[in-house]
């Protein structure tokens, strides 16, 4: 039972982490790149309109960081709960 309880707590933590990461994922792409693109396009950073930059460059960079961060975060979580292989 002990072990099952642990597995459930691990799973809940994992789900919380996933939700946080997916919120960021949504905000940088659908948010900044599509829904609020017109608003962000008022701002210019170097030669980029900000909304356009998110849609064509920023979202991709953010995705890369998200996947790396998730992999590292989960390695830590696996060790914390001692469920790693």
């Amino acid at each position, binding site marked *: 039972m002990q072990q099952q309880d642990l597995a459930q707590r691990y799973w809940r933590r994992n789900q919380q982490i996933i939700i946080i990461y997916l919120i960021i994922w949504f905000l940088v792409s659908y948010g900044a790149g599509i*829904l609020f693109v017109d608003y962000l396009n008022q701002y210019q950073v170097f030669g980029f309109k900000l909304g356009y930059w998110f849609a064509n460059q920023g979202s*991709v960079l953010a995705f890369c960081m998200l996947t790396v961060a998730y992999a590292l975060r989960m390695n830590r979580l696996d060790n914390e709960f001692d469920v790693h292989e």
Partner: protein
Amino acid sequence: MSLELLTYLFVVVSFAIYIFIAFWSRSATTHDFYVAGGGVTPLANGMATAADWMSAASFISLAGVISLSGYDASGYVMGWTGGYVLLALLLAPYLRKFGKFTVPDFVGDRYYSNVARVVAVVCVLFISFTYISGQMRGTGIVFSRFLQVEIETGIMIGMAVVFIYAVLGGMKGITYTQVAQYCVMIFAFNVPALFLTFTMTGHLLPQTGLGATLESGTYVLEHLDGLVEELGFASFTEGSKSSVDIFFITAALMFGTAGLPHVIVRFFTVPRVRDARISAAWALAFIAVLYTSIPAVAAFGRINLIETVNGPEGQGTYYEDMPNWFQKWETAGLIAWYDHNGDGRLQYAAGGAYTGQDERPDFWEVPDDPVSRSMFNSTRPVLNPSDGSFDPEVQPFANELFVDPDIMVLANPEVAGLPNWVIALVAAGAMAAALSTAAGLLLVIATAVSHDLVKKTMRPDITDKQELTIARVAAMVGVLLAGYLGMNPPGYVAAVVAMAFGLACASFFPAIIMGIFYQRMNKYGAISGMLVGLGSTLAYIIYFKFMGGSQEQWLFGISPEGFGAMGMILNFLVAYLVSHLTPPPPIAIQQMVQDIRVPRNQGSAYY
């Protein structure tokens, strides 16, 4: 050395490398053949996934599409990369833990039903064949453009090469071949991109060059916006599509990416759950190297095109004064000119120079002599010139040019004045892009038949050796069928590829997600959900792409490319409702779900 000789040399050498690698790492067991023995390092798997994923469309067409439609095409950039976040967070680690060979394996076991397995096999075959026919066509097109052979001949050469290394090498062979192919294609794409960026902005990286200033001191994108708006196009950085449509297209491509069987299966090849997570990150990083430089190539290409065609005064350029590449690609049919105002100069602006649905020139092959030529206002006679009318309020002249999006990448090295070896390299890179994807798909097709259909459904008693033979025969039949479809494409290739994504998005993604995250999901819910998602998406795409449905009839303004996301929502809803009206899955299955959620093997009953 002549360009043709160099191109042959590059292509032949790269093919020899691929075949050599496949021979060196050939598969001896089904475990090797299906998942490369499960011992691929995360880095190699990430590279192989990137090559597997980036098809002829990414390599040749995407930059052109962005170039011609600007912000409106952002959905491709975000959709085709964002899917990897979903893979890394929601799919790859759990499917790795599940630890079988294929996607139908998961669907069949998780939903304890051979009906579910067969539905999944049908989806896999449908998605993979639509997709692979596009790749075969892509190989043929690359051959015909760079080596002046018939498209059919090119397809046959491509079939032969893929056949040799996929059938011999299996997953193990194609994994290491794809690593080599990734290197070839990334080098081939970025060398011209770096040169182009450097000559236009003085920056080295395309990613920063896009935000830099031109020699004149204005920002690249500001300059481009000004150029296109003057010619009556929508602003490059803002576009003209509705947000709803871009939202749904992005979603369909994103969730479709995460549901494509040939991508998912790559995560079965790494040793551990943590390797699956990090190899998704590697894959995305390798893909991003190409995808973040694509918008820059697109913008520079468009500026070059406009300034070359309309000239420094913006009044057009005499045909005789156009650079050599123009005539070369005109002969290939990728660019065409019709002199609407009869002033002997080319002018490029908004609107179609030709009539018809996609405003492509319909060339009329007539004898190429001065008399026949003088009868037409164009260098290659066409049957469908438009009437050449335009609104003087929005643009200075009528558009006289047809530009195929592919030209942006294919002609880049010539436009930038790069040496012949770079052009030959681009040919080898485009070939690598098409072949690597075709091989990955072919393997999925072979596995679906030999493993899911024969071994798991029809004849469970066959030996490993027999199964391997069946897989090789299936790959052989698959390559022949794919070649046939490539030579006789079912409609228009882009529409067909959109269909593959829509279907993956509407069928697999929900079934797998619910299988992992929703323990209560049972076979009735999953099967009905997949059928509803698949059926609705298929019907919508067929109606609007092949039966002449018009844009006014689009549901909520969603184009057929984006409808897969709607099909996915329907799938989730139907699956949820049906599963609540029917009994929950057996205890053993619920335990299996618990088990795949935790990396370490807990030794539960289902093994």
